[in-house]
């Protein structure tokens, strides 16, 4: 093999073969392409100028992706005995599959079809018709050079393990688990907290219908807890994920509860007798207490408590054991150790939810400094009948009922200093709070909002209801919340300083209580979780879906789905819908029993690999391993997604990708540079 380009200006290594019979199909995409590119000229040009490269037919058509367009290709394949097809249309992301299938239907190996983009890469980014047409020709020529070097490929077949892992037991995860379990397949539900339920378990009422959150959630939790097809692993974390779609091996750490589940009846005596009170930062949002041995709330599923060894007196001081003494079934086990479980599953649903935006970051709102400024979750606990105040909405002193309450929307959201995105639920949650305050205290309520966002079913009606209840709406971003009075009527109050953009003036509104409608943000450990599962996060930190519109619950890693707020802020109905959608996908996969995966994969030439290990850390899908004995690196074909990272990085050129070999890419470039075009035919 030579390592140089030889005397010609050509870059490609292999001599191109002229014996293929290639069809070129140029799509108008309505006016999307044809408005900027002279499609007819491109098709005619390809037929004439690329004839010596094997092009036997060049056609244009209004919508190549329509069934008529596809039939056109299929007919040509049969009648003209085409051996290669180039479609110049939209991005391969959209219609590669369509055209490959058309080729397959006509008996041509689908991987002998190349889709080149003259929409995203040409017509949408240019206005000059002549230049765009010239560029489209170059793009077509690149596709032709490349397709000549395509080889027929067969999809890989892998069996699907029928069990599923769901991570996160919030409403999204619960929904997913139940759908799959009800369909008759086994689910492992891994939840890091002692109970499932997620954020929804903390709320009192849910907008817009004001159903009691517990009333609609706990039946589902119980179903999960008792379902024969669900193995519930709470107080557990996924530590490692190996394998690939259909065949994941998952390592789970089941943290020691110090309570023997088989013996515990959930009587709650240990919690009662435990002398150690701990502020409950998770479930009670810091407003209430729990014991050192506890279940976060009475309806917790499972019913078994966990022992918080960091706060347990026995683990601190060596004496106490009150729980053990009083436990009627001897279920307390101070020596219990973490367990490591290995699970085999075929698919994974990630539903790890969100964290609340930390309101302390908006220092001018005084949260953490001014006692009567509350976060949204704190207010949820305050208004919850089972919460620390039995549902009485009172100030931080625990007794005074506020006479005036300010609710600030968009805290931490739609704000360049914090999160640029809209947290979706905060307007509705602010309205819900307004209603609850109004109903329970009769206080004057001000809602400070920038824009009122009440899209979705029955949401705007709820807004109107709250308006009618007499809530005062002030449009403007709150500048500051302070307890420093300027006027006598401000004495002893919190003052909300705001520019009322509708009235066109600055206002100072004294209130007794401020509720910050804090936004949602990705879990603090979202990046690590993403890495563990081989997914990626957007710059904001939400998990990235395969397609924002058409595939919001899949990820770029086959066999791993996302549902609920892990994908981005959303309300309960959407979380439930995504949970169910992910389950439907999983069930679809399971029922196929076997799936075919794209054969576009990287592989290492063992003779050429020097074992330098440059590639070892690069694969976003952990597909590369190093064989110490032979001193070479290996790519696991089923894990590899054909991203090409390692192919580009291997300095020895030992890794090549099927369908994106050096030869294919360089010849595509050569085509783009029109190096293989004969002297222009003069008309």
């Amino acid at each position, binding site marked *: 093999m030579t390592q140089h380009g030889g005397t010609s200006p050509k870059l490609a290594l292999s001599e191109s073969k002229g014996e293929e019979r290639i069809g070129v199909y140029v799509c108008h995409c309505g006016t999307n392409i044809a408005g900027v590119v002279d499609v007819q000229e491109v098709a005619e040009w390809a037929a004439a100028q690329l004839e010596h490269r094997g092009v036997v037919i060049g056609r244009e058509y209004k919508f190549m992706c329509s069934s008529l367009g596809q039939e056109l290709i299929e007919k040509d394949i049969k009648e003209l005995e085409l051996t290669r097809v180039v479609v110049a249309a939209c991005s391969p992301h959209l219609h590669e599959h369509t055209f490959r299938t058309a080729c397959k239907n006509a008996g041509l190996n689908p991987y002998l079809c190349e889709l080149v983009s003259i929409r995203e890469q040409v017509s949408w980014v240019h206005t000059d018709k002549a230049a765009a047409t010239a560029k489209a020709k170059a793009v077509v020529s690149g596709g032709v050079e490349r397709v000549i070097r395509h080889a027929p490929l067969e999809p890989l077949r892998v069996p699907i393990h029928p069990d599923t892992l769901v991570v996160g037991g919030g409403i999204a995860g619960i929904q997913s688990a139940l759908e799959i379990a009800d369909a008759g397949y086994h689910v492992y539900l891994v939840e890091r907290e002692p109970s499932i339920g997620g954020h929804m378990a903390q709320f009192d009422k849910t907008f817009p219908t004001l159903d009691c959150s517990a009333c609609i959630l706990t039946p589902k939790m119980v179903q999960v807890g008792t379902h024969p097809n669900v193995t519930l692993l709470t107080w557990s974390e996924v530590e490692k994920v190996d394998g690939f779609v259909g065949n994941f091996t998952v390592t789970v750490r089941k943290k020691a509860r110090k309570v023997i589940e088989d013996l515990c009846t959930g009587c709650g005596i240990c919690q009662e007798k435990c002398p150690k009170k701990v502020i409950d930062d998770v479930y009670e949002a810091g407003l209430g207490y729990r014991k050192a041995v506890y279940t976060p709330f009475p309806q917790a599923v499972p019913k078994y408590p966990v022992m918080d060894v960091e706060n347990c007196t026995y683990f601190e001081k060596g004496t106490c054991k009150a729980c053990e003494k009083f436990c009627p079934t001897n279920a307390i086990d101070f020596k219990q150790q973490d367990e490591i479980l290995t699970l085999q599953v075929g698919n994974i649903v990630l539903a790890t939810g969100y964290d609340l935006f930390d309101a302390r970051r908006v220092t001018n709102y005084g949260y953490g400094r001014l006692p009567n400024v509350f976060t949204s979750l704190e207010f949820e606990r305050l208004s919850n009948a089972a919460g620390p105040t039995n549902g009485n909405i009172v100030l931080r002193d625990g007794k005074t009922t506020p006479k005036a309450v300010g609710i600030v929307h968009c805290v931490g959201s739609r704000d360049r200093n914090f999160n640029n995105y809209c947290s979706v639920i905060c307007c509705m949650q602010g309205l819900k709070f307004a209603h609850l305050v109004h109903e329970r205290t009769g206080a004057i309520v001000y809602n400070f909002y920038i824009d009122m966002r009440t899209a979705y079913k029955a949401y705007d009606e709820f807004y109107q209801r709250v308006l009618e209840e007499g809530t005062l709406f002030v449009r403007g971003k709150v500048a500051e919340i302070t307890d420093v009075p300027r006027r006598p009527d401000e004495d002893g109050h919190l003052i909300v300083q705001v520019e009322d953009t509708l009235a066109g003036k600055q206002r100072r509104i004294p209130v007794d209580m401020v509720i910050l409608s804090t936004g949602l943000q990705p879990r603090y450990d979202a990046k690590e979780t993403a890495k563990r599962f081989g997914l990626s996060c957007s710059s904001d930190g939400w998990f990235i879906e395969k397609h924002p519109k058409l595939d919001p619950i899949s990820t770029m890693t086959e066999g791993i789905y996302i549902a609920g707020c892990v994908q981005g802020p959303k309300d309960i109905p959407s979380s439930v819908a995504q949970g169910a959608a992910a389950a439907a996908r999983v069930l679809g996969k399971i029922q196929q029993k076997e799936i075919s995966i794209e054969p576009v994969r990287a592989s290492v030439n063992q003779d*050429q690999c020097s074992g330098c290990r440059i590639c070892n*850390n690069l694969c976003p899908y952990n597909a590369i391993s190093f064989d110490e004995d032979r001193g070479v690196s290996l790519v696991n074909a089923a894990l590899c997604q054909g991203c090409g990272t390692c192919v*580009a990085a291997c300095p*020895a050129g*030992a890794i090549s990708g099927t369908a994106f070999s050096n030869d294919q890419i360089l010849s595509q470039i050569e085509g783009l540079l029109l190096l293989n075009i004969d002297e222009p035919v003069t008309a």
Partner: protein
Amino acid sequence: MSDKPKFAMYWAASCGGCEIAVLNTNEKILDVDANFDVVFWPVAMDAKYKDVEAMQDGSILLTLFNGGIRTDENEHIAKLLRQKSKILVAFGSCANEGCVPGLANLSDAREIVHTAFNTVSTDNPKQVYPMTSYDVPEGEICIPKILPTLKTLDQVVDVDYYMPGCPPESHQIAAVIDLVIQVLQGKAELPPKGSVIGAGNSTVCDECQRARNVKTITSFNRIFGQEIDPDLCLLEQGIPCNGVATRSGCNARCPTAGAQCIGCYGPAEGVVDYGARLVSAFASVIDAKEPDEIDRILDGIPDPAGQFYRFNLAGSLLRAGKSAWEKA
């Protein structure tokens, strides 16, 4: 004239190291003499170009051509030897990929001449520059014209085999000589045309005995001024060793001796642009996310052209700097 097959060796733009490497094969050189009739080898014996011109086309069996194509004379001889030789071997890094003389492609010819004749290295108060021709009473005398860029041998003529190295290792030369002799005796076959001969199939790391791990690089360092672990891969110690990208065949001489591989054996099999490969390999294992931090790490490579293209610039996809390229 004997009826032994004919052998030639020529040097174009090169340093002479390749010729020394051939002589370094010690007693093997006697095999050359025993089996070949050396018809043209300017370094070793007197010969005139016109003698070569008079030879029959294809009459030389084997020509080892070292050096890049820098002048019109180089180009003329390259074409001449191509015409007269059955087997033309691009011998050594200069003929293969341009080597150090190829780095001059970063400047145009005028700048090169200027640097040579009118900078600190040359005291030239009268601004005397060489002329390509001069009239004397006996007639016109000429020196070769410098071309706009240095080219590799195969950018000028068709090449049968490539033998990399700066210079090729003597044991590899000996092995190739052996092979050719065996072919002559009908005991072996020539590799397919276009093959790289006298080198390995993998990279220097393959022959390097240093232990290696998953690589993460937080700084690039020079070999002096720090303690070097004698058993651990240099690149992992931040020494920018080019062994990862360089074709094997040298027995990893440099890293074995404690110095980083600088890449004289050129790109590995199938690699089109050595420097680009190396850049992406190094970049892949830099352990930093912040742009400032990445910049700091990259500043540890003060001369990227020298680091990544010392031997390969003329043979790379880049081939030359803009000023030289535009005049080519």
